[in-house]
């Protein structure tokens, strides 16, 4: 269990997808204005990341790598993830309408999100570098990446809420001050460097 916890903590804090790897910046800036939309988007991203890893990992391990087709990873993953998200949307609409009404508007937005593609490609990369990094570790890494995305979104929606009622110079209003704030939040996450390794000791 311990290595899995370390993987999750690393994915959330030290390798935070938004604040350290700068993936998924578009939803980070676009949907973080309000807490409830930020949460909805994060839950959808976590869900899709886990689904995408569950599907792409076996495809890579069984179909691409044994046949020497590793160079097709990116294009195949894009195809598979896009089809998968569409399928999930249809299934949710039919069988889980309540979940569909909560996540529905976010799912199409995530179809081609770089954070989702990023997490599956990084999983494959880590698995190639370390044989201990198997399917289970990949799944934990994806869920951790999703939770890290959620942490960044929720924190930043709080920051933006504060900015709503601040007296900001006119030339900085809107996107400029948002980017400055994002940079500061990202800088603060540098402080987490090495924390997971030291807590779990590996």
């Amino acid at each position, binding site marked *: 269990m311990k290595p899995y916890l370390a993987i999750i903590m690393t994915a959330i804090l030290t390798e935070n997808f938004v604040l350290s790897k700068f993936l998924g910046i578009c939803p980070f800036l676009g949907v973080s204005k309000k807490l409830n939309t930020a949460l909805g988007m994060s839950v959808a991203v976590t869900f899709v990341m886990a689904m995408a890893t569950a599907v792409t990992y076996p495809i890579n391990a069984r179909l691409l790598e044994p046949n020497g087709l590793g160079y*097709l990873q990116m294009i195949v993953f894009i*195809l*598979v993830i896009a089809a998968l998200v569409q399928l999930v949307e249809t299934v949710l609409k039919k069988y889980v309408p309540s979940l569909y009404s909560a996540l529905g508007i976010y799912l199409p937005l995530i179809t081609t999100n770089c954070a989702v593609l990023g997490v599956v490609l990084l999983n494959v990369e880590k698995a190639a570098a370390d044989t201990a990094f198997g399917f289970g570790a990949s799944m934990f890494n994806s869920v951790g990446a999703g939770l890290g995305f959620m942490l960044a979104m929720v924190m930043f929606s709080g920051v933006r809420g504060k900015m709503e009622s601040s007296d900001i110079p006119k030339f900085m209003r809107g996107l400029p001050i948002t980017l400055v704030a994002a940079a500061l939040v990202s800088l603060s996450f540098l402080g987490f460097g090495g924390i997971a390794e030291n807590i779990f000791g590996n």
Partner: protein
Amino acid sequence: MNAIFIAAAVVSAIGLLGGLGLAAASKVMAVPTDEKADEIKACLPGASCGVCGYSGCDDYASALSSGGTDDTTLCSPGGRDAAEAIAGVLGVAPADILPKTAVVLCRGNSQNAGDKLRYDGAKSCRMAADVFGGPKKCVQGCIGFGDCARACPNEAIRICEGVARIDPAKCGACRLCVAACPKNLISVVPASGAKAVVLCKSREKGAVTKKQCGAGCTGCGMCVKACGAGAVSIGGFCAEVDFEKCTGCGKCASVCPAGSIFLINKTSNGGIT
């Protein structure tokens, strides 16, 4: 050469599989859509602003088509065009749109209402409201830094002597100002037939209100006695008008000792200054 063929074959095969799978899924798991709701949705502006009281255009359209409501006039951004189009889809007679306007329920301008502190911070109602409830003695009073005026897309709001005023002729009843006001002072009222509106929300006892503001409702009850239709009531030392019952006769406005009651009309500004 061979590698290219294998790569193309693998990618096309996966693409084809995915495409066929999706096509099959959309056939098998098709959800029956409400065609009438889709047609109604096409009549609505699609901004999902929530003015109608539903959570968005989709919600209002499905409520209309499933019989959840038969009021075709709830969309105020869509206005008359939307109401007529919806009535056309539903096959009912187009109902008359009741014009509405937003009103600032406060007359505590610089002459009527006193200040309790000098506020030198940012010129924002939201910020000033966090400092002891605002600079005015009356905590319910309009702060007058114009958060509502900045929110208004129609430039219908201006600040007169420290109190926001809305021009009913320009107001589109979009409720953006309602959301912008930290004191919840703005309310949307019917603007046809000159309904009476009490321009005060002070819930203090009469004597306290009187000390704080010369134009505040003390809850004296003269308007209740004057009203022939039983439309005015007092709750929490402040009069309130039931718009369903109000006939717009104006008796309450003429007897009010503080002058807090006004008749609101879409064409004129009801004499509010």
